[in-house]
């Protein structure tokens, strides 16, 4: 199981270590740092590395490496999932998962890590269980604690850990009872030069924010559940009910959580909300090129495309660009060579266009690769797969909660090849 954890900054500085078994010297990280050096881009460091005596399994989150060391055979996914959970917990506790915040809260971090893992086995990883044991820092509380000698460690047994519903604590009370669900869909797509869809799929999640008193038992049903053939559920969802009736029946965790994620595969037709007409070319001689991009609405289901943003990573030999945008603004980052065009709302009457010239280092050969164009966008009040929630019922409690469902569609990894 997991022996040790090292937190390593973007630049390769080991700033925190925690051992759950015997202490492993931090020199073990040298292997990792070497691999990092070799990979160049931190995102390209392979997540599983082998050293003569240890295995190093790492993730890269928030410009930090979470590096775990194990000595025996262990499922690597288990370790990676756990590391992401650690990062999630930090985010949950400190609002973000960054070096500065972790350093500011070392002791809490240390206490958390101690509670999350025992002898390398996960102990308490549910946020609500952890929060019962170690209260998240707030400015007010730390001041109060200093003055009163109070503590931010809970003295009670975390009830959730043993009940049949470990994700929910007992005795929850709210004056306003509310349950909100966000259906968020992301379109992952690759379009080729001519605009034909090479590949497209939808990654959907239902994020819930449930603040209900007592032990409510909820049932969420859909108009068209047949769409969902590939789903992953939060442990609270009763799988049998889903299999037999295609409804989500569950006792919710308290607060924010991801109820389910689903995947509408490339077998089904996926609606593509925009089309991109583009032409990026470099001249054989002379160090320059042309760029011309127009974006228009395609299958938007009657909604407006908002927060439209276009990212074009240019070849390294590009020196500068001189472009004109009919709508929005563009920037060109000289170090990363990325053109970022913030378009905003897409107006079907007046299509946004970006065009102009590109200049290349003199003497550099014509770039070999074609840059690919990444699109970001948002469509409110629409789940592009067509998924619709029909109703939410509550059992087990008497009060009437506020209920709400929101839909939004975004571009995920949406790229256009040139």
């Amino acid at each position: 199981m997991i022996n040790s954890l090292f937190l390593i900054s973007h630049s390769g500085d080991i700033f925190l270590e925690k051992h759950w078994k015997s202490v492993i010297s931090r020199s073990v990280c040298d292997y990792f740092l070497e691999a990092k050096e070799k990979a160049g881009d931190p995102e390209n460091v392979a997540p599983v590395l082998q050293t003569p005596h240890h295995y190093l399994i790492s993730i890269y989150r928030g410009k930090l490496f979470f590096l775990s060391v194990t000595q025996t055979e262990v499922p690597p996914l288990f370790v990676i999932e756990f590391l992401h959970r650690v990062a999630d917990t930090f985010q949950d506790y400190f609002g973000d998962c960054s070096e500065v915040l972790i350093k500011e809260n070392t002791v809490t971090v240390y206490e958390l890590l101690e509670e999350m893992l025992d002898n390398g086995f996960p102990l308490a990883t549910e946020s609500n269980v952890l929060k019962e044991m170690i209260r998240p820092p707030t400015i007010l509380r730390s001041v109060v604690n200093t003055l009163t000698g109070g503590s931010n460690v809970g003295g009670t047994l975390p009830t959730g850990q043993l009940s049949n519903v470990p994700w929910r604590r007992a005795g929850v009370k709210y004056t306003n009872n509310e349950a909100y669900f966000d259906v968020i869909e992301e379109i992952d797509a690759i379009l080729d030069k001519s605009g034909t869809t090479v590949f497209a799929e939808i990654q959907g999640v239902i994020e819930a924010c449930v603040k209900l008193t007592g032990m409510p038992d909820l049932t969420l049903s859909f108009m068209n559940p047949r769409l969902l053939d590939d789903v992953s559920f939060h442990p609270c969802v009763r799988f049998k009910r889903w299999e037999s009736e295609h409804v989500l029946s569950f006792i919710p965790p308290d607060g924010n959580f991801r109820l389910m994620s689903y995947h509408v595969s490339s077998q089904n037709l996926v609606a593509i909300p925009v089309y991109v007409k583009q032409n990026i070319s470099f001249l054989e001689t002379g160090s320059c090129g042309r760029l011309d991009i127009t974006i228009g609405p395609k299958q938007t289901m009657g909604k407006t495309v908002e927060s439209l943003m276009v990212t074009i990573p240019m070849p390294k030999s590009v020196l500068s660009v001189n472009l004109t945008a009919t709508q929005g603004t563009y920037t060109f980052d000289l170090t990363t060579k990325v053109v970022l065009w913030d378009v905003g709302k897409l107006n079907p009457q007046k299509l946004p266009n970006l065009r102009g010239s590109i200049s290349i280092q003199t003497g550099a050969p014509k770039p070999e690769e074609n840059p690919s164009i990444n699109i970001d966008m948002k469509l409110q009040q629409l789940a592009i797969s067509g998924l619709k929630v029909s109703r939410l019922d509550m059992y087990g409690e008497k009060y009437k909660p506020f209920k709400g469902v929101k839909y939004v569609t975004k571009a995920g990894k949406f790229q256009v090849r040139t």
Partner: protein
Amino acid sequence: MQEWASQLCENRQFGSKMTDSKYFTTTKKGEIFELKAELNSDKKEKKKEAVKKVIASMTVGKDVSALFPDVVNCMQTDNLELKKLVYLYLMNYAKSQPDMAIMAVNTFVKDCEDPNPLIRALAVRTMGCIRVDKITEYLCEPLRKCLKDEDPYVRKTAAVCVAKLHDINAQLVEDQGFLDTLKDLISDSNPMVVANAVAALSEIAESHPNSNLLDLNPQTINKLLTALNECTEWGQIFILDCLANYTPRDDRESQSICERVTPRLSHANSAVVLSAVKVLMKFMEMLPKDLDYYGTLLKKLAPPLVTLLSAEPELQYVALRNINLIVQRRPEILKHEMKVFFVKYNDPIYVKLEKLDIMIRLASQANIAQVLAELKEYATEVDVDFVRKAVRAIGRCAIKVEQSAERCVSTLLDLIQTKVNYVVQEAIVVIKDIFRKYPNKYESVIATLCENLDSLDEPEARAAMIWIVGEYAERIDNADELLESFLEGFHDESTQVQLQLLTAIVKLFLKKPTETQELVQQVLSLATQDSDNPDLRDRGYIYWRLLSTDPVAAKEVVLAEKPLISEETDLIEPTLLEELICHIGTLASVYHKPPSAFVEGSRGVQHKRLPGSAGSGESVESPDTGSAAGVSDAPPAVIPSQGDLLGDLLNLDLTPPATTGPPPPATSGMQLGAMDLLGGGLDSLLGGDLGGSSAMGAGFGAPPAAPAASFSAPVSGGLDDLFDLGGGVGMPMGAYSPPKTVWLPAMKGKGLEISGTFARRAGVIQMEMTLTNKAMSVMTDFAIQFNRNSFGLAPAGPLQVLTPLSPNQSIEVTLPLNTVGPVMKMDPLNNLQVAVKNNIDVFYFSCQYPISMLFVEDGKMERQVFLATWKDISNDNEAQFQIKDCHLSSDAVSNKLQGSNIFTIAKRTVDGQDMLYQSTKLSNGIWVLAELRVQTGNPTFTVCLKCRAPEVSQCVFQSYDAVLKN
């Protein structure tokens, strides 16, 4: 009021921000001293702040161990946070201050009785983390209580604590009976307790490969399945991994387990999903294929695998490595999901390369157009490694899907037109393979290839281009000019290119003898006279001699028709694939290597095998039967091509693509021998023995040892003669047993002298001892015990000395041994520490046993498996030894070795040198493969050992030496 003020001052001193980062700022000289003062302060709050500072320093790796007594003093407190912080500190530093740590014991023991279960659990948990022997003694009683605690939270914490304790002192855990208590917890009413018990037992079992700690039977399986539904995600992983080790009795049980595991495929935690996939992939083997449920299950496996690919890149990577295995074993699962493996330009490079691999595996006639379009797209990307692999992939598609070959070739030509240097080079390398797969079809492109000759600067591409020129010399008008241009810098080329150039020019000469005489003489003299490379020199001499004695034969040899190359060249060998399928989701599955290849030390690892299909009723534990059943089920075209294997076996300089199809016609022995010479490397086999030209002539004069009949065997190419030995090994002789030596001299044994030896008789390891009483009084009450040792040797029964041993009397005792005892790596590996007790005292001595005692009777490996395994084991694990002064014939050698369970699988005679290929299996399942070279008249043998646990090589060699010399 005053306290309030002082605290205010303190706060100011720390800076205005009330965060922990302030602890980082104090790096002044007197820091430790200051902290010491604060820790001993009367004020609770100040104490806590000080402990926090200490912990913060500790987390960043500063040494604050000097504060140990002061921190421990803070332990007795009602403040839970303070207590926890002190515990954290203790865990870190107890090891370096064991005497101080004892001070804490009382508080721990007291806390284990606390009415608050949280405190009880915390105490037992922390105690287990203090890795100090003295503390563990005190831990036993509290732990025993906690394992039976009324509160499940305490029980589950205690279960993990047993694993911790086992890590520190395994013997203690066994002696105290904690393992049995742990096994009982599998039937606990609380699912979390069950899960933790399973996790703890699994971890302990890993250090006891032979023990049957997790004795799975239908009842326990049922309990695990029940707990599976109710425990946390992590618990589910432990339980699923444990389930995967179970072998269902029949297909019905298998199906019912599959049905109960399938819902886990919808879990949000990808590790749960993959562990469930492992269980299903394994148990599916037992289901009859015509069963409806079998089809349903296949369909259910695809979506979760696809979903894994939308997770974070790190998860994707592990998932892809596993999908690579799954696709090889059951291609039908994902055959329609090609598109999800399309590469996104912002995928990390490690994900891109894996996706590409799987795309090629899934490529078929149905989707080849899409795949090719994608590959072409990738070939224009930025990342060089990725582009190269994409170009290679196009070539592999051509070879795999015949209908697409033409399209692939034209795509490759397009890419060559881009003139991007590395793209051109890769393209030429793969086009060479395409020529070999489809001879006389695409040669029209040669002209285009020749245009790019100058831009090639990588040896592999140069060698490929030279091969093409030589092979098609008759169609290339200026072939001689082209080859001549390479010859100019002959000595600066790599060996690969030099060898290829030599062969190509000889080919050219045989095709166009009139114009190229000068050229061939030039290359032959460069190769033989000016080169220091033995491979090159030998090949040069062979050609020279061949051309000068019999040009017709030379033509037959050099221009012989080459076998076609196979479709897939990088498939995992089937037995390894099966084993890896059983390890889905583990590190082994990520590395595509069996766990035995990288589990440290000589801890044996049981090789896992897929169960046979329904009704076969075969025992799964036995690797032989298991693999036999599995192979017959395996999809076609997975059999690795033997030519390739032989190539590696002989350390070829150039890896030729694999051969399949019917073996080439064996017209004459001569041609046969030379055939694999052209394939690229018999010369390395012939090695330095061909120094003189007379010896070389003799080498060619002698007909190869292979009877022509052996070509009907499915093994193809020149390999057969390697394996002509068949079962033709004579009657084995008895196992070797060294003479007795004195282990315990009477001086040290208070009059008891023990001499002894080890023997293996009828499959039982025995320790044979002579006990001599050289004292004045009678000795009685003999007993024996072994320390933990590398192979788990332990007495199988008590030491049978029935009558008292009178003075000056001797007695012969035979003690049967087994290998299920506790394991610990010894130095040397075969060292055994023994304690013998009698009525007088306890005596300790150590002795070394010949490792041949551990060679088991079923150590004869299948030839194919041998080849595959030899190939699979990395060359780093190879060790070479010399056996001197041995005057035995090779047959006598194999007979003698077989007596000690070293089995000769094949024999090959080359130029008066016999090569014996041998396998041996150790009692813990480690295989050792050997190549023994015996040259008639030369008393020095060379033995070359390959083993996944290279540590044993030295001992095995000693056994060879001992067996052969006695």
